[in-house]
């Protein structure tokens, strides 16, 4: 699924990265812990979180995420959005809370990655 479709499903506002909406999203991971993001966010996966600090962007960038969705209508400050734009990490915010957000994406065909985080099955 393309990031553009995710945006429509979640009624999301694009905070930065309009030019990245054609990116492919293969899987999603939702959490509020940086250590879990490091283990489970894979290339081309979408990070769903309610954390809005600069470290989330850094983590998404290091793990090659397709983008970040902030839930519950949360928005990071302007500096975080600018930094994310410079690093090509698209940011979207959805009014849906985390459970609804995950449910909507799941029922539209996006699943979590069930493989061992480090590829060791």
């Amino acid at each position, binding site marked *: 699924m393309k990031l553009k479709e995710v945006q429509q499903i979640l009624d999301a506002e694009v905070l930065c990265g309009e030019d990245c909406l054609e990116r492919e999203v293969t899987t999603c991971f939702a959490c509020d812990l*940086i250590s879990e993001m490091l283990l489970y966010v894979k*290339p081309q996966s979408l990070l769903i979180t309610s954390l809005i600090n600069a*470290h989330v962007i850094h983590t998404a960038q290091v793990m090659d995420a397709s983008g970040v969705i902030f839930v519950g209508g949360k928005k990071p400050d302007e500096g975080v959005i600018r930094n994310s734009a410079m690093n090509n990490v698209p940011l979207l915010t959805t009014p849906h809370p985390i459970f609804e957000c995950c449910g909507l994406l799941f029922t539209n065909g996006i699943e979590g990655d069930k493989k061992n985080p*480090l*590829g060791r099955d």
Partner: protein
Amino acid sequence: MVDSLQYTPQITLEFPIGEKDFFMAGESASRVKKTLQQLGLKQDIIRRVAIIIYEAAMNVAIHASHGLLTVHIDPESISIQTDDKGVGIPDIELAMREGYSTAPYEAQEMGFGAGMGLPNMKQCSDELSLDTKVGKGTTLKAKVYFISKEHPG
């Protein structure tokens, strides 16, 4: 993609990390990742090294007054080392337990300090050792081989 770097000179990268310097943790992982990508290393190796660096540097930022992260790339492996001045680890076995954390609320509020740092690093590295003195500081050494027994492929 390459399994070894026979024709590449050895590279050492250093990152000083100050107290509460959470930004540098992510930044050091980001910079090393770019270097490893330029060297053409496998994505799996880059991913594991980036996780170790992020977690190790974050531990220094959270728990120490200051420290140094050193990343050394040689033809067969990548060595990651942090040397810090800080509180040290009174009980290593407890610190290695998933979910155990002594991180302050300030760090936990930002999504850090979930008690997964050391277990994550252990999972991602081929070798991991800790040398710590309570009240003085900690040295952490991790190694990732390009061809690994623990993480084949």
